[in-house]
C-alpha cells in the first residue's frame, strides 16, 4: 500500500473536520456568559451538543467531563480504524496516554480511600471504566482493600510491572508522585518504541514532534522541581523523561554524575532552546522582588506558553506540508485536545466563578 492510499481518505476526512473546528467565536461567547448554565447553553447547535444534553439532564459538570473524555477516546478510536496496521498501532500508543491518565485517577481514588480513608463513592462514578487500550478491572481497583488486590485489578496489563515496584507502605510514606512519574515514563518508553516502528516520513514527523514535546516537558520538570524542591541527582534522574534531545545529551555528558547537574542541564537547554533560556534569564533579571516560588511559577507559565506556541507552529507546518503522512492525524489530535482543553478550562472557570480575564489568561488568549 502506498502512502497515498494509506492516508488519502483520512487526510480528506480530518482536513474537512479541521476546517470547521476552530470556532473561537464560540469560546469567546462562552467566556462572556455570566453563568455556567449560560455558558453551556452556547453549545446548542454546535458539535458539542452532546455535552449540553448531558448538562441539561444532570446539571453535573463532572458528568459532562466524563462525556468529554468518552468523546476524546472515540476520536482516537475512529481515526485508528481508518489507518493501516503500523500507524494504527501508533495511534493505540497515543490512546494509551489517556489510559495512563485514567489509571492515575483510579490510583488516586484508591489511595484516597484505602490509605487516606476518605469517602470516594461519589467521585468513583466519574471514573471512565470502559476499556481504553488494556483490559483493566477498574471496579476491582477502586474497591481494593490491599495493594495485592490493586495489582490484581491490573493483571495482564503493562501497568503491573510499574505498580509492582511500589508498595502500600512506600506510597503511604512518599505519596503518589513517584508512581505517577513511573507510569509516565512507561508510556514514553512505549511512545519511543511506537515511533521506531513507524516508517519513513511518518517516523521523522513523529520524532520531530515528540522529541521537542519531551524536551519541553523535561525543561518544565527541571524548572518545577529543581528550584522548588532541590532534587538530588538521583531524584532528577527519576523525574526526567528518558527521551528527547536533552535527556540524550544529559546521558552523553554524564550531567547527573557531575558536581552541578542543574548547571550542565541548563547549558544543554541553552544550546538547543536559546529562546526559552533567554526568556527565563530575562524574567529572573527583571523580577528582583519576586520570591523563588513566584519566579518559578512565572517560568512554568512561560514554558507552557512556549510549548503551546511551538506545537501550534509545528502542526501548522504539518498541515501545509505532505498530506499523505501521519502528520495530519497528529495535527488533528492536537487540535482536538486543544479544543477539549479550552472547553474544560472555560466550563470549570465558570463553575468556580473565575473572571473573564482569568479564564482568558489561562487559555493564553
Amino acid at each position, binding site marked *: 500500500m502506498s502512502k497515498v492510499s494509506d492516508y488519502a481518505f483520512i487526510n480528506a476526512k480530518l482536513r474537512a473536520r479541521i476546517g470547521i473546528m476552530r470556532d473561537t467565536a464560540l469560546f469567546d*461567547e462562552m467566556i*462572556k*456568559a*455570566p*453563568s*455556567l*448554565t*449560560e455558558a453551556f*447553553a*452556547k453549545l*446548542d*447547535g454546535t458539535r458539542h451538543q452532546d455535552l449540553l444534553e448531558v*448538562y*441539561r*439532564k*444532570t*446539571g*453535573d*459538570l463532572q*458528568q459532562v467531563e466524563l462525556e468529554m473524555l468518552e468523546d476524546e477516546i472515540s476520536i482516537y478510536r475512529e481515526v485508528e480504524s481508518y489507518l493501516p496496521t503500523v500507524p494504527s498501532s501508533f495511534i493505540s500508543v497515543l490512546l494509551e496516554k489517556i489510559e495512563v491518565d485514567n489509571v492515575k485517577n483510579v490510583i488516586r481514588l484508591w489511595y484516597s*480511600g*484505602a490509605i487516606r*480513608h476518605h*469517602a*470516594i*463513592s*461519589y467521585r*468513583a*462514578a*466519574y471514573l471512565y471504566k470502559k476499556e481504553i487500550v488494556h483490559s483493566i478491572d477498574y*471496579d476491582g481497583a*477502586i*474497591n481494593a*482493600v490491599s495493594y495485592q488486590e490493586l495489582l490484581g485489578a491490573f493483571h495482564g496489563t503493562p501497568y503491573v510491572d510499574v505498580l509492582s515496584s511500589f508498595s502500600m507502605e512506600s506510597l503511604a510514606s512518599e505519596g503518589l508522585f513517584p508512581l505517577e512519574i513511573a507510569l509516565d515514563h512507561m508510556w514514553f518508553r512505549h511512545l519511543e518504541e511506537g515511533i521506531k516502528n513507524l516508517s519513513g516520513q511518518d517516523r521523522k514527523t513523529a520524532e520531530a514532534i515528540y522529541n521537542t514535546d519531551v524536551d519541553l516537558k523535561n525543561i518544565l520538570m527541571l524548572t518545577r522541581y529543581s528550584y522548588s524542591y532541590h532534587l538530588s541527582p538521583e531524584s532528577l534522574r527519576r523525574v526526567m523523561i528518558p527521551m528527547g534531545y536533552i535527556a540524550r545529551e544529559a546521558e552523553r555528558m554524564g550531567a547527573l554524575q557531575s558536581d552541578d547537574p542543574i548547571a550542565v542541564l541548563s547549558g544543554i537547554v541553552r544550546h538547543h532552546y536559546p529562546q526559552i533560556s533567554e526568556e527565563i534569564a530575562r524574567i529572573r533579571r527583571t523580577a528582583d522582588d519576586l520570591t523563588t516560588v513566584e519566579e518559578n511559577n512565572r517560568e512554568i507559565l512561560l514554558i507552557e506558553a512556549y510549548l503551546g506556541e511551538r506545537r501550534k507552529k509545528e502542526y501548522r507546518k504539518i498541515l501545509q506540508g505532505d498530506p499523505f503522512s501521519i502528520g495530519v492525524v497528529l495535527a488533528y489530535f492536537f487540535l482536538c485536545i486543544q479544543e477539549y482543553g479550552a472547553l474544560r478550562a472555560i466550563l470549570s472557570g465558570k463553575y468556580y466563578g473565575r473572571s473573564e480575564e482569568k479564564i482568558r489568561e489561562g487559555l493564553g488568549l
Partner: protein
Amino acid sequence: MSMFTRKMRMLTAVVMESDKDNVVKALLEKGVMEFVHIGSLPADKMARLSEHSSSVPKAVLTDMRIRVETLLKEGGLQLPELESHVLENLPSLDMETYRRTLDRLSLSLQSIRDRQKVINQDINALEEIIRYSAEKKDDYLDLRVGVTTHGSADDLLQRLEQIGGVFLFSSKPFISLTLRRDSSRVTEVMDKFGWTESTDSEAQKNAVAEAIGEAKAKTESYRLELQKLSEDAKERIRKVADDLFRIWTNVRVHELCEHVESYFSYTRNTTLFSGWVPSEYSDDISALISKVTSGRCIIEWTDADEMPREEVPVEMTSPKILKPFERMVNNYSTPEYGSINPTPFTAVAYLCMFALMFADLGQGFILLLVGLVGTWLYKKHPEKKDGIISRYLCSLLMYLGPASMIGGLLFGSCFGFELLPALWFPFDAVVEGEAVPGLVQDIYDILGITIKFGIVIIYLGLVLNWINLVRKKRFFELVFDKNGLVGGALFSLGIWFAWGFVASGYRTFPSAPFFQPALIFCLVLLFLKGPVGAVIKARKGEKESIGSIVIDTVMDFLVQVLEIFSGFLSNTLSFMRVAGLGIAHASLMAAFYDMAGMPDNIIAQILIMILGNALVIVLEGLSAGIQSLRLNYYEFFTKYFTGHGIAFEPVGFKSSSAD
C-alpha cells in the same frame, strides 16, 4: 423578475441633527438601504465631521441581545418578529434593569442545575451498588442486617446516609447495604449505636433483594425528579418569556439603530449619511426622509453607473419559486453588478441534468414525497434543527422529484420497470442492448445526446458572457477573450470538425473551404490580443517595453490556444457524465431486477426491489445532485460568472447585518 441584477442608486443625505432619530427609525422600518461609510469626501471636510458616539455601545447591546437569545433558546422559545409599531413608542434602554432580570433568571436556572447535580450524584452512588449486585460482584458490597441497642435509629440513618448506600430502617431488623470500601466508616458509626447483627436467617437471605429493590425504586424516582427539574428549567424561562421578549425587542431595535447611526457623520447641527437603495425605492426613500424631517433635508442620488462597478452591492431578484437555485448561485459567489442573473439558467440547466441522470417516474415521486413531507414537518416544528434531510434539501427535492418524474415519462421508467411507453426512447432497453425503434439505438447514441446537451449549455454560457461584456462595455474582452467571440468561434469550428470526423465513422477529417481561413483568422485575433491590449494600456498611460509585449504576446497566445483547445474539449466531454450516471442508474435497476428474479418467493422478490429502489434513490440521487451541481459550477458558471460582486445587505427589522 429582472434578467439582470437589481438596479441600484446611491443616496447621500444631509438632515438636521434633531431629525436624526426619526430618519433612522423610518429607514429601519423601510429596510431597503445598505449604509456605507462616508469616506470619499475631501480630507478637510472629513476632518470637520465627527463620528457617531453612543450612550450604550453597540457591542454591549449585541452581548445583551445574544444573552437573551441564549436564554430564549434554552427555554425552547422562538425569537419574536420585529414589527414596525415598536418604533412608535420605543422605550429607552434600561440596561441595569435588564441585567438584573437576566441575572435573576440565570441564578434561578443555576439553582435547578445544582439540585440536578446532587440528585445525579445520588443516582450514581446507587447505580454502583445496583450494578455490583447485577454483575454478582458481591465482594464489593457490605450487607448488614441487624438492630441498634441504643441511640435513635433516625440519627444512625442520618449518619449512614452521609457515607452513602441503601438503608431500610422502616421495620426491624434494619438493613444496610453499603460498599465494602466504606465498611470501616460504617462499622465506626454503627458501633456507636450498638449495632447487633440479626440472627434471622430468612431476613439475612432476603435483605440484598430488598435493598436492591429499594435502590432501584429510589433511582427511578430520582430520575423522574431529574426529568422534572429539566422541564422546570424550561418552565422558568417560559414564565418570564414576556419580559425576555420585551428586553430582546428593545435591545434589538436599539442595536439596529446604533448600527445605522454608526455609518452617520456629524457636523454641529447636521447629520450626513449615505447608502445604496434599489432604484425602484429611490422616490419612496426621498419622500420618506422629506416627510420625517418636514422637508429640512438635502438629498442627492448617484446612479450606480457613475460608481466603480465593484463598489455597487448586488441583489438578484429571482421569483420565490427559484429561491433554492438562487442559494445554489450564492453558494458559488455573488455575480458582478449589472450582469445577468444566473438563477433561472441554473435552475433550468440543473433540472435538465438531474432529469437525464435520474429519470424514473416512481423514484421521482418518492423524492417529491420526501420533499413535501419534510417541508410539512419543518413547518409544523419550526424549532426543529436541520437533519441530514435539511430544510433546503426538502425545498430542492420538490423540484428534483418532478424533474425526475418527467425524465421517467420521457424514458418510460418507473421504479426500474418499463411500465409505461417512453415518450422519447426507452432508456433502460437501450442500455440493456435491446433492439429499439427510433434514432437512439445504443449507448453511443445516449452519449451523443449528452454531448449535444453539453454543447448547448457551454454555448449558452458563452452567449451570457457576451451579453455581460457588452453591458459592461468590455469590448476588448468580448472580442479577444477565450470566453469571448474568438473563443466561441474556435469552439464552433472544433464542434464542426469533430462532428465531421465522427460522421465519417472516425475515418477522415472533414474539409471545407471556410475551415482553414476561419481557423487562421481566429488564431490571428488571439495572437493580436497582446499587442492590442498593450496599445489600449499605452493610451491610458501604462506603457510597456517592446520586449515584454513580445514575450507576453507569445506566452499568452500559447497558453490561450492550449486553454481553448483542451478546455473546451474537456468541458464538452465532461457532460458525458450525464449519460454515465443515467446508464449507471439503469444498470443498477436492471441488476436489482435480475436479483429479484432469483428467489421463488414473491415477498423476497418485492423486498429486493424495495431495497434496490431505496439504495438507488439514496446513492444515485445523491450522485446525480452532486454531478449536476458540479457541471453547473465548473462547466457552465466558468463561462460567464465572474463572481466579483458584493451582496446587498439592507438594514431593516429582518436583516442580520447588524449581528
